[in-house]
């Protein structure tokens, strides 16, 4: 049986193979994104249906709320601190795990536990850990005499924010460490040997060999971490649900509140578009610096 010309053209067949994935993407990614953008410019009823064109009304409604700006700033601070700490800790752990020592395999296995655990369950465990009277953290601090009157972590705005932040960092460090470790292992050993011949100190080797060759991995990992951290709903929702008051709300929890608790889909969509915009700008800046450095 001879096949028709159509089937002989490899690129055409490739397009055919792409159809299912393209349809899936259109249905489950592009349609919701386009609909949310539309919603942000329309009056929307409580069922999420578009009612009438509202222009920038939903955006103005949010911009007029001082609380919204606090949430935006908090989201940026939250992301900046969390990503910076995750990157620093992740890099240190990766450097340690890249050295030969007894129990290295066990250490790598233990490292993966927070990443492998479900985030909501991790957050629930931390919620118990933070309990002022019966939690492990305050009990340990008191028992060791480190802190006689430790704070009630989830009761005050600042400590609640830090408590949330730490759980996000705790969940995110393993990913960073493992990605950095993979990057470190891809650096040719000869470069370090050459540097040693030239009399390089350990710091010089790190500064002039490790960091430049790890920059591509660093960029990708921190970009991914930025996107995930900015949208980390689980930790805050489980630990404090945005409280006390609204003091630990970030954009993603605030959007949830407006959409599914108050049924104000218009303002919620406007905030979702703003979030999308912020993350798009961050991604473009990252991508530009990544390609400019010729990492690929």
């Amino acid at each position: 049986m001879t096949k028709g010309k159509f089937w002989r053209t490899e690129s055409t067949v490739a397009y055919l193979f792409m159809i299912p994935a393209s349809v899936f993407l259109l249905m489950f990614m592009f349609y919701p994104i386009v609909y949310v953008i539309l919603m942000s410019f329309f009056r929307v009823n409580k069922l999420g249906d578009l009612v009438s064109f509202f222009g920038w009304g939903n955006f103005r409604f949010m911009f007029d709320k001082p609380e919204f700006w606090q949430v935006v700033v908090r989201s940026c601070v939250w992301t900046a601190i969390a990503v910076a700490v995750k990157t620093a800790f992740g890099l240190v752990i990766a450097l340690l795990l890249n050295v030969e020592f007894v129990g290295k395999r066990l250490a790598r296995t233990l490292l993966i536990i927070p990443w492998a655990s479900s985030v909501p369950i991790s957050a629930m465990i931390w919620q118990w850990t933070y309990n002022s009277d019966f939690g492990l953290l305050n009990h340990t601090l008191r028992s060791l005499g480190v802190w006689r009157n430790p704070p009630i972590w989830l009761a005050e705005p600042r400590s609640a924010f830090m408590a949330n932040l730490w759980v996000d960092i705790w969940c995110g460090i393993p990913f960073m460490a493992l990605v950095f470790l993979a990057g470190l292992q891809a650096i040719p050993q000869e470069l370090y040997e050459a540097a040693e011949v030239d009399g390089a100190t350990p710091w010089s080797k790190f500064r002039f060999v490790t960091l430049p060759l790890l920059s591509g991995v660093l960029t990708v990992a921190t970009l991914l971490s930025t996107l995930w951290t900015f949208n980390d709903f689980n930790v805050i929702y489980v630990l404090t649900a945005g409280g006390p008051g609204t003091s630990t709300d970030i954009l993603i929890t605030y959007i949830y509140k407006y959409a599914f608790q108050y049924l104000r889909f218009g303002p919620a969509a406007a905030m979702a578009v703003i979030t999308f915009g912020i993350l798009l700008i961050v991604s473009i800046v990252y991508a530009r610096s990544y390609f400019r450095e010729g990492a690929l």
Partner: protein
Amino acid sequence: MRKQLVWILVVVFLLGIGGGVSAQRKQVSVLWAEYDGLTPDYASNLEAAFEKEYSDIDLNIISTPWDKMHDRLIAFVAGKQPPDLSVIGTRWLLELIDMGVVEPIEQWISKDLFNNIDPALMEGKIKGVLYGLPVAAGTRLMYYRSDIIDKVPETFEEMLQVAQKINKPDEKFYAVGMSGKKYVELTEYAYYLFGNGGYFFEILPDGSYGKCTVNDEAGVGALTFMNDLVNTYKVTQPGVTAYRRDELQDLFIAGNLGIFLSGGFTATLLEQRGATFEWSVAPMPHFEGKPQSTIIITDSIVMFKDSQAKEEAGKFLDFFYSDPWRLEFDKLVGFPPVTKSLANDPAFQKPVYQVMIQQIPGAKGWPLMPEWPECNDIIWDNIVATFLGEKTPQKAMDDAAQEIDSIRGM
């Protein structure tokens, strides 16, 4: 090859038969609230018993924690995939009616069931149309450690005096439980507000809601007293803003609280978990010179317009409201019965039920308005701001009232 083809055909045929059988069974889905005290076995037993009685109906009970009910239901409704039936807090009913998704329910249930429900509990009747059957209804009351407290406080002022005597924070024993972390509704504030003769809104002559009144003397007085308990007298557990109502309940059951204001379900949990101390219940305290008043909370079960199995859903309601299943349900959740046929059952003659029933005449319900979930959060956030020392009670309630009136266009 031929043999394989025959096998494939046989499998397809059998699957077809199976599919045909299941296609004949009408599906009924129920969004089911996990009440405190209600064991998971109850829902699975109910499902099995109903399907045994009605083999042509496939019942799917979707169990959901109470504090996730509203958001989950809204996600179903907004996704145009509502269940056939759902348990709701009756205060959400106006919101659902506003969305145009609930079905008048009376025509889908039997006359016997309709006549067996106490008309006084039909809060789900809006402008003469019954949208929701009461599932649970009960007033909130005061639990106290009867092994420690000799004289039961009748007023909040007396409660404070007792609290100052029994509070022992060094031994992790706190006189009064207070929750400041959101958990479904702001019941805590309602206890003190209603006990001070106040309400959330002014009631206009036609029965509709006027301006928000939480910043009047009663509203500010209630918050001032709560704040004094927390920050001046320090007779509550520390870190009130970190405690949800259910976590506070655990603290009471663990023996770390002297007084805890709650609903009938706490009594069930105290028994289920075998509390080792002596406890008792009393009517909710009120402020001196004000009439005793507490909050009455009703939950309802509603049917959705989009249901493709209304008749079958009605059969489920008749089944669920039959005496054996309702008796078990009421006993587990700790609310007095909503059906007349169980009113005199010996199971409901305990003090906790007696107190709940005794309080009904002076009790007030939640405001029934579509914007209530947002109003609820606004008031709560301002109460927390007071506890944290960011606002005075007057400023907090002024801000809350102003914002609520603004979103309601008043």
